[in-house]
């Protein structure tokens, strides 16, 4: 008997197109508990769309997605079914997303931003939520800014608050959509260090990024997305050191991240 645990996230033949353009053309992906899966690849390859489909910010057109033990959509021959809104919402709250543009609620303070999901979605009483939110802010070293508004913060600080907002939900999985792409170079490493910490604390991460150094320092598994497929996946050494396909080799070389 095999003792392979069930994956936290399981995608089978997921399709998504916008009008005539097919963005995802049959994605298969398994993410296991504690894994740090990094999606890399050229722009327009479907990485962000894939992330948004897992979170159901975009609805896939076909395929089966199982997340945290729940079927969010399923394909049975020609029949495609999406789970009820309520199931999707429940799943979203357990795998929140961190965005490239931070997307903090601009009318709320830092503390209120982090409390929002706890109070509104998880229905935790305000006093308790305040404590949890402060703990989450402390984990990203932003407690001292709890009473500031988002537009008083730098990009790096905003992203740390956004991570705290996701973290406060106490989720098993966090999705990161290019979390450092909108940051000034000197702010990148601080945010990356926090994400790395989360991974070493056992959180399951799914990260889209264009930063090879970040992938090499943090990823457990690297998946190369291109033309709507996952063309190759493996460890950092496998993908960066010894890519199997020409396509991936060219991409790795052009991004100057080849491991020799």
């Amino acid at each position, binding site marked *: 008997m095999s003792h392979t645990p069930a994956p936290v996230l399981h995608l089978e033949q997921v399709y998504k197109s916008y009008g005539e353009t097919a963005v995802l053309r049959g994605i298969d992906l398994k993410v296991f508990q504690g894994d740090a899966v990094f999606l890399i690849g050229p722009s327009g390859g479907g990485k962000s769309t894939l992330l948004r489909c897992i979170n159901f910010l975009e609805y896939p057109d076909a395929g089966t997605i199982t997340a945290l033990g729940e079927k969010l959509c399923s394909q049975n021959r020609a029949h495609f079914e999406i789970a009820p809104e309520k199931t999707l919402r429940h799943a979203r709250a357990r795998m929140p*997303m961190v965005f490239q543009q931070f997307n903090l609620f601009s*009318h709320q303070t830092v503390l209120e931003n982090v409390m929002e999901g706890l109070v509104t979605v998880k229905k935790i009483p305000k006093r308790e939520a305040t404590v949890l939110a402060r703990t989450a802010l402390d984990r990203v070293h932003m407690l001292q800014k709890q009473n500031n508004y988002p*537009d008083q913060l730098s990009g790096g600080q905003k992203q740390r608050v956004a991570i705290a907002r996701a973290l406060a939900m106490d989720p098993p999985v966090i999705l990161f959509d290019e979390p450092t792409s909108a940051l000034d170079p000197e702010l990148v490493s601080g945010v990356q260090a926090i994400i790395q910490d989360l991974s070493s604390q056992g959180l399951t991460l799914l990260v889209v990024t264009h930063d090879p150094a970040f992938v090499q320092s943090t990823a457990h598994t690297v998946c190369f997305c291109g033309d709507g497929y996952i063309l190759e996946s493996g460890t950092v050494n496998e993908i960066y050191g010894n890519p199997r396909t020409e396509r991936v080799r060219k991409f790795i070389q052009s991004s100057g991240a080849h491991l020799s």
Partner: protein
Amino acid sequence: MSVFWSEVQEYFPFLLTGAEVTLELSLISMVGGMVLGFLTAIGRLSKNRFIRWPLEAYVEIWRDTPLIVQLLLIYFSLPEFGIVLSGFWAGVLGLTLNLSAYLSEVYRAAIIAVDPGQKAAAISLGMSPLQVYRRLIIPQAFVACLPTQGGYFIALLKDCSLVSFISVNELLRHATIVISNTFDSMNTYLMVAVIYFCMSFTSARCVGWLERTLTPARRKKTAIKPIMSELVEEDNA
């Protein structure tokens, strides 16, 4: 001048009772217009075209006909259908419907303008569409449309004078009564203008105060500065 002051003393209180009716009219219509306007805006954002289309028609018709015609129609035609409204309530109905058509567009624009990224963030935390509205869209849209809304309130206050045509004893109609006694149109209308100005000015200040109170302090400081510095840099280049 002395004639003016004696007239002010004699008729000013009477004009003020008219102003009171004007204020009542505009306050009730404002609240009605806000509620109806908001519902119309939500309806117009619906995916269901059978909700959207009638509301689009409603907004168009009400914006493309003069308020005075609407008031006269309501006051004189509704009784034909067995609905008899007093001048005051006919006025409230007309002003409410008219204002709601305009405000619905203001609200709709403000709702659409809420940052889609923030909406996505709210959804990705597991919020329901209703929660996204209640916690994110309405608080932001409400503050965003306050100045425009304030402008409509002041316009409404002055549009109330049209209700004198359907024999509501508001400020302008009281003025007409005063003039028929004194034949002094100039001083009477002057008083009317002063009263209107005071009411409008006060409400404009109130809206301004509300706006400042509800907008977190940061906006005033940060909203303009970056643009200014960009301009300066461009100048230097």
